[in-house]
């Protein structure tokens, strides 16, 4: 059934032993030594061929069995197209739903964020007694950035609405305003052009803009010379300096088309009590979450007197992936559980169908059974579990395994952390 563990050398030794034994016996029957050896060889036939077959047997046996079983399954299908259609439909529904849900689960819970070393990325924000994750104010950001030792870089992003004026007309669009090192922190490099330069996010810096890949395709036809052109946002000319890679996505940005450096602030954004920015930071190597939290809250204590709010503001540091996935996790898990159950029910249904039908095949099996290994396959085709794995190309069972893997991974944090470092506190 499986590839054997025995070495080919051992097999060759056995063949040699056979030849010696046979020659001994022939010699005892009165042949000369040489003749006995010759005859033993002749009787054995092609030694090399036997060794070759031994080699192939290990490799091909399971494949061979699979092919035979598939052929057998196909013959059965041809014999009972109605039955086959129902079985396939039921399994297809089960598999389809499980795969669809799993695609979501995979994207949201299993796949790490598409940034460099995503497990070190943290969402850094204020926290208050009533709201565990509060946006921060620009002055706070500047102080945090200056004072902290835990993060190799700390950046902020916020939303902006602009009026984009084009020859064809004006359109209101969504853009993201980010601090200068935002993309470097994520580990994302523009596909075309350049990132923001160090001075460009200082107040009064130049008006530059990065495009989303899709914006570049839709608005600029994917033309290389889009970089260097200017666009009119809110009546101000902005120079396009680059295009972000096609694979880049940042969940919170939603449909934002343009990325601008934060180099001009509205009057209230200068205030320490205008909480409008969201922080993201990259933890330094060898700094863990607890240490970072401790340091940040001591910084918050220092800054507290400058805030107008009465209550103590803290700092929330949580993995960025947790913020991005947010509250969807339990929902996805419930859906996944439902899909897996559905698949299981589909398997059970098909299994009972097969079982019911097997009653009519009793005679066929009784005749087939003594004829060797095929019989086993026939029996096998009766067991619902095997039927599932064989007839539908092993898909549902592996799907089940995947599903249950994801499920158990989600429920048991130990496994979870090992399989998905991005959600763990530290890798």
């Amino acid at each position, binding site marked *: *059934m*499986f590839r*054997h563990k*025995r070495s080919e050398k*051992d*097999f060759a*030794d*056995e*063949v040699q*032993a*056979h030849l*010696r*034994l*046979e020659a*001994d*016996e*022939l010699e005892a029957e009165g042949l000369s030594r040489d003749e006995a050896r010759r*005859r*033993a060889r*002749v*009787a*054995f*036939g*092609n030694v090399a*061929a*036997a060794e070759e*077959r*031994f080699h192939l*047997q290990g490799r091909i*046996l399971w494949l061979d069995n699979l092919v035979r079983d598939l052929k057998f399954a196909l013959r059965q299908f041809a014999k009972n197209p109605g039955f086959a259609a129902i079985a396939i439909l039921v399994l297809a529904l089960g598999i389809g739903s499980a795969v669809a849900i799993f695609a979501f689960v995979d994207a949201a819970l299993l796949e790490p964020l598409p940034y460099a070393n995503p497990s070190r990325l943290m969402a850094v924000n204020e926290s208050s007694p009533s709201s565990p994750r509060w946006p921060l104010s620009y002055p706070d950001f500047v102080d945090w950035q200056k004072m902290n030792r835990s993060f190799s870089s700390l950046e902020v992003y916020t939303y902006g609405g602009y009026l984009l004026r084009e020859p064809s007309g004006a359109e209101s669009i969504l853009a993201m305003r980010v601090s200068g090192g935002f993309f470097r922190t994520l580990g994302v490099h523009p596909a075309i052009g350049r990132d923001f330069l160090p001075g460009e996010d200082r107040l009064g810096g130049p008006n530059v803009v990065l495009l989303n890949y899709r914006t570049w395709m839709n608005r600029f036809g994917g033309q290389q010379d889009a970089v260097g052109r200017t666009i009119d946002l809110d009546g101000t000319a902005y120079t396009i300096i680059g295009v972000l890679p096609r694979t880049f996505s940042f969940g919170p940005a939603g449909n934002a088309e343009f990325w601008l450096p934060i180099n001009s602030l509205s009057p209230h954004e200068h205030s320490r009590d205008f909480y409008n920015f969201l922080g993201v930071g990259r933890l330094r190597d060898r700094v863990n979450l607890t240490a970072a939290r401790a340091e940040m809250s001591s910084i918050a204590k220092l800054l507290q007197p400058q805030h107008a709010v009465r209550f103590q503001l803290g700092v929330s540091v949580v993995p960025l992936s947790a913020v991005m996935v947010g509250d969807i996790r339990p929902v996805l898990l419930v859906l996944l559980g439902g899909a897996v159950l559905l698949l299981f029910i589909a398997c059970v249904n098909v299994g009972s169908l097969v079982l019911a039908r097997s009653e009519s095949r009793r005679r066929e099996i009784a*005749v087939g*059974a*003594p*004829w*060797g*290994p*095929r019989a086993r396959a026939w029996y096998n085709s009766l067991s619902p579990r095997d039927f599932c794995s064989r007839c539908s190309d092993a898909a549902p069972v592996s799907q089940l395994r995947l599903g249950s893997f994801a499920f158990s991974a989600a429920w048991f944090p130990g496994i979870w952390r090992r399989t998905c470092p991005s959600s763990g506190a530290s890798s």
Partner: protein
Amino acid sequence: MTTRPTPDDRIALLQGTLDLLILKTLIFGRHHGQGIARAIQRQSEEVFFVDHGSLYLALQRLEDKKLISAKWGLSENNRKARFYSLTAKGREHLAEKTTEWQRLTRAMDLILGGARLPEGEEV
């Protein structure tokens, strides 16, 4: 004789029967491959010729299925040989397959040969 006697009289083994014959040969104790080949030929009155390549592959197959186990040892004339013996699972398998085989041959015989052979006679 191990050398091929009269090729025309020999019968190609039906698929699956070689395994059964091997198991049967091993029921009285351990044997090496060459001994098994000889025993099958002798006991079938030279009707079956065992292709040795197939024999060793069959032995390997049975070993993989854990119906037999193998161990290197010394033959009675002090030759190194790989000895096979039946496992408990193999013994059970043999009993089961033998019954099935007997039922089949009896049924075949009833149809093909009328009642010429007495019941239970082995082929």
